[in-house]
């Protein structure tokens, strides 16, 4: 039997004495995308962090391709996206490559930045970019070769993006899906058009 990319069973998780999840199941196959929806404070971010292993206080089982989750099998872009404002976009991405132990040529960095429309901004400290441009730097990680992992976890990736940026990012997501990846993401905005997209509500609608 082939394993689902992501398989969550009987998840129970509480925060501040409040139960966020109970008996929560979720299954995500290859080439599937799932949008998490729910009111503010419902626990979407918490769920993503549980999956990524950054919030260990839960009960239940979370498995990636049938085994416990390991950090190098997924790509997580959170509210705080891991981009240093003091470094340039290129330096930031190069570090992300290094972090994953990528040994190929650095040319992929400028390719990724070109992909998200940041040509000419490669060497500007990210602090000096606009909010949307900073987001684009963070999302350029999706265009790096190290992004070819089974699972993407994207927490409100569309924040601060203009329409073109939205197209870009959903293009990257579609491409990953076509490549057999699975994507779990949250957004309060209308979701983009993606093949294999479904929606899952979390928490009582407020």
């Amino acid at each position, binding site marked *: 039997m082939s394993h689902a990319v992501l398989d969550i069973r009987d998840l129970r998780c509480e925060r501040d004495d409040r139960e966020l999840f109970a008996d929560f199941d979720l299954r995500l196959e290859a080439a599937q995308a799932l949008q998490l929806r729910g009111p503010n404070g419902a626990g979407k971010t918490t769920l993503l962090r549980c999956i*990524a*292993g*950054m*919030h*260990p206080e839960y009960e239940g089982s979370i498995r990636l391709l049938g085994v416990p989750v390991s*950090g*190098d099998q*997924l790509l*997580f872009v*959170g*509210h*705080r*996206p*891991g*981009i*240093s*404002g*003091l*470094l340039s976009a290129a*330096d930031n991405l*190069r*570090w*992300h*490559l*290094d*972090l*994953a*132990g*990528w*040994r*190929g040529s650095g040319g992929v960095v400028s390719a990724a930045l070109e992909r998200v429309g940041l040509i000419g901004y490669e060497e500007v400290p990210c602090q000096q970019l606009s909010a949307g441009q900073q987001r684009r730097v963070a999302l350029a990680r999706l265009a790096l*070769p*190290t992004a*070819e992992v089974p699972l993407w976890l994207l927490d409100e990736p569309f924040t601060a993006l203009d329409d073109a940026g939205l197209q870009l990012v959903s293009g990257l997501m579609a491409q990953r899906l076509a490549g057999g990846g699975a994507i779990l993401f949250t957004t309060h905005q209308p979701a983009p058009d993606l093949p294999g997209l479904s929606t899952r509500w979390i928490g009582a609608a407020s």
Partner: protein
Amino acid sequence: MRASPGSEASLWVLFRGQLRRDLKLAFGQPSELANPLAFFVVVITLFPLGVSPEPGVLAGMAPGVLWIAALLATLLGLEALFRRDRDDGTLEQMVLRAQPLYLPVVARMLAHWMVTGLPLTLLAPVLGGMLNLAPEARLPLMLGLALGTPVLVLLGGVGAALTVGLRTGGVLLALLVLPLFVPVLILGVSAAELAGSGLDPTGPLLWLAAGTSFAITTVPFAIAAALRIGVETG
């Protein structure tokens, strides 16, 4: 060419990448290399001004003064050591993706040492000279600093990692870390003082060397563990 994680080459890439990043953050331009050097000279100047400018008195204090400057330099950058990374999500990515986390931690500590311990060690003969330190004590002092400052940085790193998510950064951190610094301080100072009074300084230096090798091999694990906790709290 995705390296299989854990292969030797990708470990090296991971280490080098972190070191490059951190050095870039520490020294945007080559001219900034002078800042730590100038910093130490300023700190040293405080002692003749604050305590006494008499050559004899200064000579006696010199090893202690230099070591206290080392503690100070280590402490000063400590709060920011992981805090910025935590605030912008970099730390999360490190904890998540670095396999093993040990390596970027070592690289980070090395970078911090290169801004604090290394310049002080290199300057030690000059600073010692300015404080009238006996010439025969200068080499042992330098050796002691070379061996001891990495330990300071590592121990400081544990403190910084433990307090990374906390409100009361500065003072609490110093309070946690300073007592841990004491043995290093004592060994380092006594090496220089022994040499200054014509005795053999190898004893404390050997102890320091042992401590350093032990710290380098073990402390980064403690730091990595503390960082994981810090990320989970966030």
